[in-house]
């Protein structure tokens, strides 16, 4: 600073007074103009910029955070969702329909850090202890609510193409909510390798994703058989993405995968849809994908068709051995989904909107009810039906969303806890504010 002229100091003072520290970072073009006019030289301009940034970090929360020196970037983010839900359901063989209106909220707070030498770490806090839902219903007496640790992970990026993650982390797989509920954060290990293929677009990719997921860590001394074994899920997936069309903005994605489960028993009483079975026979082939046409009705618009398919090669064991369902019923080892969506914008700016409609059928033996969407048919299997959803961004950071689910049973009189719903409807109206 001692190199700076009186004139420069006066200018700096004027900047502080006029613009305020919070706007200090925006003054770079103005300083550059002063350099061009010959009022300050380059060195003085650099010192001035540094002083303004120092003032910014001193006078805002940024300057008061004491971060470890290994942290090169620390991002805080989150969202709050207010939801009104109307729901009806009727069990197989029941004469009455259960109806409920629920007012709920979900709060999520995330911290993601980039550390030096390719390392990273992060956490997420949220309401709701269930793995497949962060919702918290408003209960009586203005009670306060608990916050749970939804994610806690470390990562190591070996190269730009290869990253390892361990702990409880964001779902790394390309999927739909038919197989994986969007709220679930798997726990265990995850590896991702990305290969740039180039192709006509120059940016086509083939990614290999794998995870070794701990579904339950039991005390082996407390029981033999399936109940005394740790429960693991091993998931592998290849994701091929190719781009085409004008500016290569349209895309096609196909992601074949295979999921293996060890035969064991897990306690999921915390889940929205508690698992009811005495073993896990989920060796599932999956094949989600999408075809996305960009700019179909002007810049920023897109039309997407998407699908998912799942086939449980050990579905018979799951249905007859684990669920104990009579062999007169079909094992029904297939689940599938087809959908179409129209978007204006990316959903990140005021005025962006989107509409989606999908139809799906879930066989009783097809997928793992512990991880499938807890909203479609309340997480039940043996269901078919559709989901219609829409969203509108009222600001860049706030949106109004609506979703309607309608389902009916596939096989009647199945009478098992994971597949005994006769029909259901859910209407969800949300206000989501992101920060």
């Amino acid at each position, binding site marked *: 600073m001692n190199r700076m002229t009186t004139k420069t100091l006066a200018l700096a003072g004027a900047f502080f007074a006029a613009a305020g520290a919070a706007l200090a970072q925006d003054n770079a073009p103005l300083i550059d103009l002063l350099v061009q006019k010959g009022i300050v030289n380059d060195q003085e301009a650099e010192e001035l910029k540094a002083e303004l*940034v120092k003032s*910014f970090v001193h006078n805002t929360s940024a300057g008061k955070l004491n971060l470890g020196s290994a942290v090169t970037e620390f991002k805080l983010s989150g969202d709050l969702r207010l939801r009104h839900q109307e729901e009806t359901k009727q069990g197989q063989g029941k004469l009455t329909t259960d109806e409920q209106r629920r007012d709920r909220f979900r709060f999520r707070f995330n911290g993601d850090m980039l550390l030096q030498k390719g390392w990273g770490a992060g956490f997420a806090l949220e309401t709701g202890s269930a793995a497949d839902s962060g919702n918290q219903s408003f209960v009586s007496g203005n009670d306060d609510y608990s916050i749970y640790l939804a994610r806690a992970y470390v990562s190591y990026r070996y190269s730009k193409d290869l990253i390892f993650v361990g702990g409880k982390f964001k779902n790394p797989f390309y999927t739909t909510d038919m197989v994986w509920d969007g709220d679930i954060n798997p726990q265990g290990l995850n590896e991702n390798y990305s290969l740039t293929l180039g192709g006509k677009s120059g940016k086509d990719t083939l990614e290999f994703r794998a995870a070794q997921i701990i579904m339950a860590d039991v005390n082996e001394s407390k029981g033999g058989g399936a109940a005394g074994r740790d429960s693991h899920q091993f998931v592998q997936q290849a994701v091929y993405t190719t781009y085409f069309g004008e500016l290569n903005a349209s895309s096609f994605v196909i992601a074949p995968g295979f999921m293996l489960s060890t035969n064991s028993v897990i306690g999921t009483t915390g889940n929205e849809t508690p698992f009811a079975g005495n073993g896990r026979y989920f060796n599932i082939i999956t094949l989600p994908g999408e075809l996305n046409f960009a700019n179909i009705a002007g810049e920023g618009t897109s039309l997407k068709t998407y699908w998912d398919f799942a086939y449980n090669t050990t579905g018979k064991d799951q249905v007859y051995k684990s669920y104990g369902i009579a062999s007169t019923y079909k094992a029904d080892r297939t689940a599938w989904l087809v959908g179409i969506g129209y978007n204006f914008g990316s959903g990140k700016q005021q005025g962006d909107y989107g509409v989606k409609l999908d139809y799906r059928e879930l066989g009783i033996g097809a997928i793992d009810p512990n991880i499938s969407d807890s909203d479609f048919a309340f997480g039940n299997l043996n269901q078919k039906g559709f989901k219609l959803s829409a969203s509108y961004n009222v600001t860049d950071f706030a949106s109004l969303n609506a979703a309607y689910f309608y389902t009916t049973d596939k096989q009647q009189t199945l009478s098992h806890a994971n597949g005994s719903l006769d029909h259901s409807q859910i209407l969800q109206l949300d206000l989501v504010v992101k920060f």
Partner: protein
Amino acid sequence: MNKLLAFVAAALVAVSAAQAQKIVIKGSDTLGAKLVPMLAEEYRAQNPGVSFEIAAEGSTTGITAVIDGTAQIGMSSRRAKTTEMSAASAKGVSMKPLIVAYDGMAVIVNENSPIKALTKKQVEQIFTGDITDWSAVGGNPGRISIYTRNTSSGTYSDWKELAMNRRDYASSSQKMAGNEQIAAEVAKNANGIGYVGLAYVSAPGIRVVPVNGAVPTKESVLSKKYPYARPTFFYTNGEATGEAAKFIAFTLSDAGQKIVEKVHFVAIR
């Protein structure tokens, strides 16, 4: 016993004196590959008692080292980010930038490439992946191979700022450890394109492409007519003191700035 104490005290004084003569400099590969080692060599020739520890692993490491107190001087080819200034502030470190030279980041292609000129827009489209074939910018048909610096490099982020409208690099871009590696890869690949500092434009097998009609020269960089010109910095914790201050003064002196020009950077005056 008194003799022993005197010996120990003398030894401690000698050790501390020796340590005081060591200048630790970390950071930018752009500065640390050639310029700073040559400055250090010349400075050491004039000051035989001084030793240097120089580590050139990217601007981020230099700024972090000043914040951590593990280097007296941090070399950087970019300005410190707000998050870095914040981290420094939290540790009571006052980051002080000092322009030591100017650099022009040259767009280079293989010497056999027919590309004679590019516009700023075309450069942005190439490095972001909007354009993937040379035929789209007047070259022979062939997939463009993009070579960039790695993510800890100040040049990597400076290029995004200056040439890419802050957009992300094309996913197909290949990250190189330094300027020399980029020049070497482009020299081997007829479809290659990359960017290097002025000190590397005369590497064999490559050719500099004018952008918006301008090539990086001393005049175009100083007059800021070349679009990809930038200052390069030494960062210190407040005003440098001791031997580090003397080395900085040498760097800014006529003798130091002659070395700056010798390695094809642009002197500050």
